[in-house]
């Protein structure tokens, strides 16, 4: 049995030398993890709209086909958007990767066990939907390999599940002003902000 990973270390590794990666984060711990790795105007942090993260990533990937888009979200957030995995598989963006930081629990609401904690495998769901590549990571070596895939050409959308320790770490809070983070994100792409 491998020792469960530290989610902050996982996210820091995923974002190491991120190049021009655009990042969307699912609400809750995934947003805190990405913020803890270093605030960046190329991050769009979600604080609500549960189930939307991978789909916001899809729209961004469709609009910016020459940029790589990474969605970092939690198991509970992705479970609420399960149908979205079917939509993404059919839309087939080659520049979109989704990494689910899977602690098997709803961490924000009292650590209730989630579907993944009870055995559901989101990588299998994505594979059944038609994702051409899925991965499952349990060691930091696996995570480093997923990080490298983010910067290598892909045939279609990629989903990876990283299993981590279930714990509530000190919060690292990104800005909650959704208009502010929208405008600073769009500014990095040279888009109008007013």
């Amino acid at each position, binding site marked *: 049995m491998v020792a469960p990973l530290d989610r902050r270390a996982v996210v820091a590794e995923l974002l190491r030398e991120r190049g021009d990666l*655009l990042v*969307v984060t699912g609400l809750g711990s995934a947003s805190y993890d990405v913020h803890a790795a270093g605030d960046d105007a190329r991050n*769009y942090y*979600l604080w*609500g*709209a*549960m*189930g*939307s993260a991978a*789909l*916001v*990533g*899809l*729209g*961004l*990937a*469709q*609009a*910016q086909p020459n*940029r790589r888009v990474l969605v970092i979200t939690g198991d509970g957030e992705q479970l609420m*958007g399960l*149908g*979205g995995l*079917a*939509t993404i598989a*059919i*839309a087939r963006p080659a520049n979109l990767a989704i990494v689910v930081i899977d602690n098997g629990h709803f961490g924000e609401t009292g650590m209730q066990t989630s579907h993944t904690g009870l055995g559901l495998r989101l990588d299998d769901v994505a594979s059944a939907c038609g994702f051409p590549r899925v991965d499952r990571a349990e060691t930091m070596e696996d995570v480093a390999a997923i990080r490298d895939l983010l910067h290598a050409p892909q045939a279609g959308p990629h989903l990876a599940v990283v299993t981590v320790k279930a714990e509530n770490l000190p919060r690292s809070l990104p800005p909650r002003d*959704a*208009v502010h*983070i*929208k405008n600073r*994100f*769009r500014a990095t*792409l040279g*888009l109008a902000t007013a």
Partner: protein
Amino acid sequence: MNMTQTLEAGTAWPDQLYARLRAANVTHANYVPDAGHTQLIKLLHADEAVTATVLTTEEEGIAIAAGAWLGGKRSAILMQSSGVGNCINMLSLPVIARIPLLMLVTMRGEWGEFNPWQVPMGQATEAALRAVGVRVFRADSAEELLAIVPAALVEAFDADQQIAILIGQRVMGEKKW
């Protein structure tokens, strides 16, 4: 294109609706099919400059459109009134982030409806949208719809408004479907 034109002779309203969307540089469209949107969906798919995405449920379209705007592109979201109920919490995203939103909603559950199951959501559609902060325009004729669309496009994409256009069941009634 002359935006003050109404019904060009011999052209069905979905074709003109499509032309107005494209004239305003809408390049992305997300939809759950509705019989009333059949022709518009066909036109959008046939257009190589348009990315058309089929959804499993309508709220996905709200999220995809928000992502597309973060990346600089304009979207329209097509659905039937029953799908509006599925979208409510997801609408927090465009509302709180002030992201342009254009929903084209074909109505059921009102004019000559034969299926009672369509009535509760159809009757609640406008109130539900307004309750979450989406502005509503309503068209009960093709002429009215084609006059509303250019105005709604400006308000959505230039004034960052969240807008739904309800296409009354009477409008679809003009077409056999």
